[in-house]
């Protein structure tokens, strides 16, 4: 068992060193952790969604994301070459080693908050995967080519709900507006670029290039029902560096508890 608070500082430093030495691993973990953490969040809706069809829909979307995460984590582990498989990466890293954006770890809120997050993230992930299909890295290109078709459905699902809620009753519209307010501070981080991206060249997609097509899609959805993305009163970032909010710790505790208590458990 590798976990333990006593040496987490050392391992954090180790992870940083590894990241600098292996940019492809680091980049793949960013993609994987976004999918994995959002998958876990969406799974929390199961048995709690407003209607049965939504229960099934959110579970299916979570499953797609989990499948993407598994392929990416497996690849990150293979590329790293230190013997870590998908389970070791998903279950035995602490929060500081996760590379997901803050948006995906935010608590679900009400259904409108979740749909606002889904619209923002699926539209981002769609543009990302659409370009990653042309990656110089064949594995990333293959994962993206498969995933972009799934994410097209996620994006459409969110867009339909945002329209329905925004164009529904006074109460549903109030909640949709509040949902957009809630996710807005976490939007800008999606499009941050850094040295890692330039280092990887044609392997990676520059997030900054996604902002314009992303905005075109999201704005069209929102404008259609007289909504808009508000100006943020603050912006939050740090996820790519492993600097997360409190919420991720609780999410990981739930996700990792079984595997850490019973290493290698299967059924």
């Amino acid at each position, binding site marked *: 068992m590798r976990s333990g608070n006593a040496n987490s500082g050392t391992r954090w430093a180790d992870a940083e060193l590894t990241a600098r030495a292996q940019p492809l691993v680091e980049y793949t973990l960013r993609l994987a952790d976004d999918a994995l953490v959002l998958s876990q969040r969406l799974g929390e809706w199961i048995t709690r969604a407003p209607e049965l069809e939504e229960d*099934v*829909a959110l579970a299916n979307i979570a*499953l797609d994301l989990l499948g*993407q995460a598994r392929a990416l984590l497996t690849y990150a582990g293979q590329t790293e070459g230190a013997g870590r498989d998908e389970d070791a990466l998903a279950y035995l890293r602490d929060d500081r080693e996760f590379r997901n954006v803050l948006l995906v770890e935010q608590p679900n809120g009400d259904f409108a908050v979740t749909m606002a997050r889904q619209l923002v993230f699926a539209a981002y992930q769609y543009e990302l995967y659409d370009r990653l299909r042309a990656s110089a890295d064949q594995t990333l290109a293959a994962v993206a080519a498969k*995933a972009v078709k799934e994410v097209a*459905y996620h994006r459409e699902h969110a867009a339909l709900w945002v329209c329905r809620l925004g164009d529904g009753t006074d109460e549903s519209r109030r909640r949709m507006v509040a949902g957009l307010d809630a996710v807005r501070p976490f939007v800008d981080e999606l499009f941050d670029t850094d040295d890692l991206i330039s280092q990887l060249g044609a392997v990676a997609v520059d997030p900054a290039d996604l902002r314009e097509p992303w905005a075109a899609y999201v704005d069209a959805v929102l404008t259609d029902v007289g909504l808009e993305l508000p100006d943020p009163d603050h912006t939050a970032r740090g996820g790519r560096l492993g600097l997360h909010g409190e919420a991720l710790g609780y999410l990981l505790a739930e996700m990792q508890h079984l595997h850490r208590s019973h290493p290698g458990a299967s059924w």
Partner: protein
Amino acid sequence: MVTSTAHVRRIAAEVPDPEMPMIGIGDLGVLRDVVIEDDGRVVVNLTPTYSGCPAMEAIRADVLARLAEHGVHDAEVRLVLAPAWSTDRITPAGRAALRRHGIAPPGPAGSGPVPMQLTVRCPQCGSPDTRELSRFGSTACKALWTCSACHEPFDHVKAL
């Protein structure tokens, strides 16, 4: 023993999909190809339908078990991601089997990100007067529809 790729392919193709057992993985397009390596080892290449399809592990086990039943013991299943699976890989025979069992087969996947939706005919009564209840159905690959003519709900394999 002597095996040919065509022989192994026929055996593997009949492995039923665990979630839609009326259709074999050959007709579903999940079976990509079979390769017999120089040392006689049989490699079955499968392409997953959806990234997170939970049936893949079951299909992998079923393929190996079925090959073993037919005397092919030195076999391996590999998952091939590219080119990505598409519902266009489902054969006409597979589409007919789906329809016979009350599942409306997919329309053409087309080239756009989300394919244009053609009329989905009710697999029960054949009426084109149908509507989508939910884009996401009982499995990742299906949507839930209902027929306004005979009022039966039915599954529809989404174009992908």
